[in-house]
């Protein structure tokens, strides 16, 4: 199955987290905010000039940078 990066989602598109390939500290922080395998995420918007992404996971909205989001691999939906 083809996986894409969280940073490659189109605005409004959803995906299911399949892999989180990042250093341990950041993975724990992601996990604490709900980024776990099998969870659904949605890209809400992104800031101008290569700015950060707003992502919704469950009831939580978070911002993260595009290059950090590249380490989160998803199975895209719809």
């Amino acid at each position, binding site marked *: 199955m083809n996986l894409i990066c969280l940073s490659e989602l189109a605005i409004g598109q959803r995906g299911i987290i399949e892999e989180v390939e*990042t*250093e341990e*500290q*950041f993975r*724990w*922080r*992601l*996990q*604490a*905010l*709900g980024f*776990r395998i099998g969870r659904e995420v949605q890209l809400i*918007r*992104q*800031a*101008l*000039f*290569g*700015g*950060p992404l*707003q992502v919704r996971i*469950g*009831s*939580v*909205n*978070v*911002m*993260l*940078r595009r290059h*950090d989001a590249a380490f989160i691999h998803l199975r895209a939906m719809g």
Partner: protein
Amino acid sequence: MKRIALLGMPNTGKSTFFNRLTGAGARIGNWPGITVDLLSAKILLGTEMVEVVDLPGLYDLHGFAEDEQVVRRFLLNNPVDLLCIILNATQIDQQLPLALQLRRLGLRAVAIMNMTDEAEQLGIRFDAAALAAGLDCPVCFISAKYGRGFPEARETLRHVLSLDAPTASPTSQTDFVADEALIAEAEKLIARSVKMPRVLEYGLSERIDRFALHPVLGVPLFFLALFLLFQAVYTLGTPLQDGVAWLLEQFRELGLVHLQAILPGWLYGLLVEGVYDGLGTVASFVPVIVLFFLGMALVEDSGYLSRIAFLMDALMARVGLDGRGFVMLLMGFGCNVPALMGTRVIRARGLRLLTMLIIPFSLCSARLQVFIFLISALFSPTEAPLVLLTLYATSFLIALATALLFKNRLGGGEPLLIELPPYRLPTFQQVVLRAWHEIHHFLSRATRFIVAGVVAIWLLTHLPTGVPAGGPETLAGMFGGWLEPLLRPIGIDQQMAVVLLFGFVAKEIVLGAMAVVYGVQGSALAQLTAQHMDWVQAFSFMLFTLVYTPCLSTVATLRGESKSLAFTGVSIAWSLALAWLLSFVFYQSARLLGY
């Protein structure tokens, strides 16, 4: 005395709960094993005095952020009789793993499910019994903001604390190890005890964000909001300030002057022309400061700050920082010291140091007083807001330019992950309480530094005896004389040089010092100042005041937080050099242009 520790993630309303539990009697104190200050208060719970400590918010116990280490070290070094775990009911799915982690420490605990008012609106339902069984501790459902369920929560705390169960304490760092199984356990518990609508819709927050985070409109809207906030503070604050100044002047003219007949001349001078004039000048700014902090509290509690981090991250990335750095600059508008402490959330040392290097350029409320005073003395009411805006813009630009210059030596990135909480309208009480905290801090600082400062200035301008007060033969005149070659090129005369010297201790002293140096206060001080300097000199003075070292507390905080003398030295030297250079360029070019 038994001790309760409050623990929870950021954005759970932990501080609101703490404030409600303890009233306004909280004190900052030192704790074994940690170097930072924590808020604590002693309260009467049932028939027993109990100490309540507010620990920093954390995402998980084994995290590496400084705040998370602080919590670990606190728990290792300080006996805790009861852990009070605060949870945000609207995000229970994210928060349970932390609660379970905390339960594994073996301490007695009570879980406080906060923000149940919002959770209800979102259609989240809880099975209280299943949740309490899963967490193996009592669970209270409250809204700290509105006080709902609060008496019951308090009673539960008292009851659990009165049980004579042995409390275990975590004994080593290994008790904090991470556990993947925890997350599976949390998910099972959620499935058993919480009913959530499939997609949580924060309708209103989402609608606001469509504007607030709009790719094109977002940033202009932010600056518009900022401008309106300052405009409101200025237009509402200055008449109030004039009123207070007038009252203080009347009291002096009608009451204090009669002391002249009773007191010896030097004592009258010291008390009335020194302490009263100095303190009075600063006190007249309290209404402005109150308004300012009310505005800041409103913004901080609303959830807008993290949106600002989102909007500004791309810009800040170009100068080697991230969106949080910009938010901390904004916090610095109140006071630089807490803003510097706020950098603890940044783990990468270089990035943290770079952020700490730019915060002292943030135009804090103490500098704001000086500027409002000088601006209203020397500029017309129509020019005034523009001059103030120019100073705020300069403050931002210098901060960004400094970051750009130093980003190759310091700086460096770390993954950025910030929650964008739903917008909240803070309650009136919440805003007032927060603002009161800030004002209290300001007043205690002001009285401590200012009384000592104005007394010292009065002595300097009146010693040795037998020479004209404030003249070149006094100690102040001598200091001023030494500094003159350095300060004349930037248009600052001997008297103001002494004022600047004291401004190094705290900017709150500057106005008090001016009152003592000129020997008058209130409107007379404004008039006399306008006679002593023209607008070019005043602006040069303000530029210098804006850029050079904010105050001794900031220096101490820089030293304490960076744990590096070299860094602190660089920060002071850079700001002094830059202050002089900017004032020099401005003053000389303005004079060249014929102003």
